[in-house]
């Protein structure tokens, strides 16, 4: 899969509008701070902050809104809004802080959580574009995430059945080297970089054992190789689909923490 395909936006117009909005925010900041004293608590600084907070609240409502997207637009429109408004919100946070480092713990936490939430969201977008394409292009097997352990078990049963009539050499090879790998789903980050990665190396022992078995057993070994490949594809499916589902752990709790801190920030601003 080419890099261009990964980074290409689904709706270029939205990306362009977001870029224009971010440039507008930063330009406004520069003009205002050049012409007038800049303060996050007053004037444009306050507007930046209030707008950013409003956008973050809008973003946080996304999970509740998405299943009920219609009649207010489509789910795709909402996810697009979620992505690009998050980017604009972070830009507003930067402008609100006067493009300077915070001085207190809460300021740092707010900035870092905003950054983390937005960056993890963008990583999620990339994963959602990259992983499905990678799975479709690189693998033959398609499997529902939740069914993968069941399918692996079926493969194990099938392979166990194949070796019932095998000789000592093959049986020992199967029990020691093949079965442990087939018995459980093996997830790995390596699939993110190469969905077919490690396959040739994993099949090498099968090729080696072919030299020591008779013709009848060679057919069994070849079947075992096919089962092993299928198992590896299921591992890849499990790994990548797992990443696709679990990246939210990086995104959502941070967003929740951001909401909590944002509330503290707003309350302390009102009180103090």
């Amino acid at each position, binding site marked *: 899969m080419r890099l261009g395909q990964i980074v290409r936006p689904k709706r270029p117009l939205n990306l362009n509008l977001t870029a224009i909005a971010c440039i507008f925010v930063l330009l406004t900041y520069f003009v205002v701070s050049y012409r007038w004293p800049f303060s996050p608590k007053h004037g444009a600084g306050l507007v930046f902050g209030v707008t950013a907070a409003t956008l973050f609240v809008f973003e946080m409502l996304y*999970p509740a809104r998405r299943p009920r997207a219609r009649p207010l637009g489509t789910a795709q429109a909402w996810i697009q809004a979620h992505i690009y408004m998050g980017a604009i919100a972070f830009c507003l946070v930067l402008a609100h802080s006067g493009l300077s480092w915070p001085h207190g713990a809460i300021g740092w936490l707010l900035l870092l959580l905003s950054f983390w939430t937005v960056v993890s969201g963008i990583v999620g977008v990339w994963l959602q574009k990259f992983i499905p394409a990678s799975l479709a292009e690189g693998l033959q097997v398609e499997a529902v995430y*939740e069914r993968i352990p069941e399918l692996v078990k079926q493969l194990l049963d099938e392979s166990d059945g194949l070796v019932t009539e095998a000789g000592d050499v093959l049986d020992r090879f199967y029990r020691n080297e093949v079965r442990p790998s087939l018995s459980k789903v093996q997830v790995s980050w390596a699939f993110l970089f190469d969905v077919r990665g490690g396959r040739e190396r994993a099949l090498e022992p099968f090729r080696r054992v072919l030299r020591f078995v008779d013709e009848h057993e060679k057919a069994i070994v070849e079947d075992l190789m096919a089962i092993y490949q299928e198992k590896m594809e299921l591992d890849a499916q499990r790994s990548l689909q797992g990443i696709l589902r679990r990246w939210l752990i990086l995104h959502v709790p941070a967003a929740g923490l951001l909401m*909590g801190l944002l509330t503290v920030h707003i309350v302390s601003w009102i009180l103090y």
Partner: protein
Amino acid sequence: MARKVAWGTPGKSTRFLKPRSARTLVLTGLGLGAALGAFYLAVGVTGFRGPIAPGSVTFPHAPVEARCQECHAPRVGASNLRCQRCHDPSGAGRLTHSAHVLFGSRDVKKAAAAPDLACARCHVEHRGRAAQLAQVDQSHCLSCHFPSFASHPEFAVLRTPSRETPGLTFTHERHVQEYVKRGVAAGDTCVKCHEPQNRDLARIEFDRHCASCHAEQGSVGIVEPIPLDDALPAGSPSQGFDLARGQVSKGVVPHRDPWVRGSLARLRHDLDPAGYAAERGTLLAQLSRLRRRLAFANPLAGLDPEGLKQREEVLLSEIKGLGARLSAQAAGLDPQAGLARVAEAQAAASGPEASDLATSVAEQAQSKVAGGAPLTPLEHEARRRELLSALDAIESADPELVSKTEDLRRRVTALVPGETGVEMLTRVRERRETELLRVRDEMDLRRGGAAPPRSAVAAGQQRAIETEILATEARLAELPEAPARALTAEERTRKEESVEILATSCQKCHEIKNAALAPVTAARHVLVRARFVHQPHLLQAECLRCHKGIDTSKDSRDLTLPGIQSCRECHRPQGASQTCQSCHQFHPPELP
């Protein structure tokens, strides 16, 4: 046939598969956020507010870092009143925006109309221990003033050059030549008198810089005989006095001789009673104001709750009184009512002179009603002098009225040209209301358990006020109270001659008008709204580079001050600093 990996989903599931919902994750995230918020709330409530603060405060504020209420008021933010609690404990109001406008423009009306500005707008706290709170972002100045140093206007003193004298007849040329004659290099003559001191130049003092030539034997001259009546009682011959034929003379006259100065003051009282009374009245009013400030400079921190309550009551009573006066003024300001009273006076006038005066007053009043023109500064000064003389006379006639005259004197001197009595009273009432707010804020803080601030700053301000009071009293002592009497033409001529004789030695250098020595303002800083320090400039250039031609100046009024363009030669981008704070300060100095 060997087994192949099949495309697509392998087989169907025998059980129902429910994808995991993201709701749990979202709820967990929100729960974490709520927990974090609750944690912050808890630490805030328990008084451990470090984590909630947007940053550490500066070193001087570090002792109060944990006590937010020392600076912050609920729903107000960083409160000006709480800044002033420590930084302006006497409530002089010099840290306000209006004080800045008044310092810059000398326009009371403009200052009164200046919007309030929060201290925290410019002095941004919570930027770390080492932050410089006094260092203010340049853009704060530029938002009201010119946009850059390149567009800095010419110095006011050069834009409208005044030929105001420094109170001395003095030529630089003569003094430079004298030093050159003594072998001092021409370039070094300046620092013989203008001695470097504390990064700037020391004040010129007679004893230090002038006496060696102008009072070689300890005397600046002699006083020829004058009538005994025109002078203070003479001392003994050992003090240089000589009494003969109803006249007194003095052979030894030291600089600032008290007998000469006292005698001149007495003669001035007779020759220019209005000027004398005005100066004395102004000094008395200033003294009264300073004493009031000293009484109130006892910082609120030093008062117990009972004292605060009493202060609140006093201020409430003052505000009530000012309100009553304002109401009375408003009623009295009805032009038609005023004209009716003038008409009554006209009708009641018995003699032709009185009738003419009443008619003139009526015409003036009519013109004021029609045009509404305020008094010119000269008219204002004349009226002020008249009123102060009248108050002086009243006080002499009935000493029991001192408290009343003191208050009236304060009010008369508080008036500025172009400002009506109502405006002045409104201004004073606003000030009292601010003081009341401070008292109430202090009471709130005490109730909240806040400790009184340290009194170090207050003590400094008190000392400054006390010093000013002593100086004012010393000046007042030279203007003793005495009943003014009308002089015949002969007496006037004689007294004028006596002034000439008494001041002969003084007039060698000093200017004298109406028997009063002009205040000496030699070697003063003429850039009154800027802070110019000579030393760093002297490291860069010789005196004559900026003060071109001062060595040949024959007139004490010559400023020989270069314009702003000469500053720009060094204060430029990639050169010396161009910030406003390099030369200016926002807050006026103490006791403006």
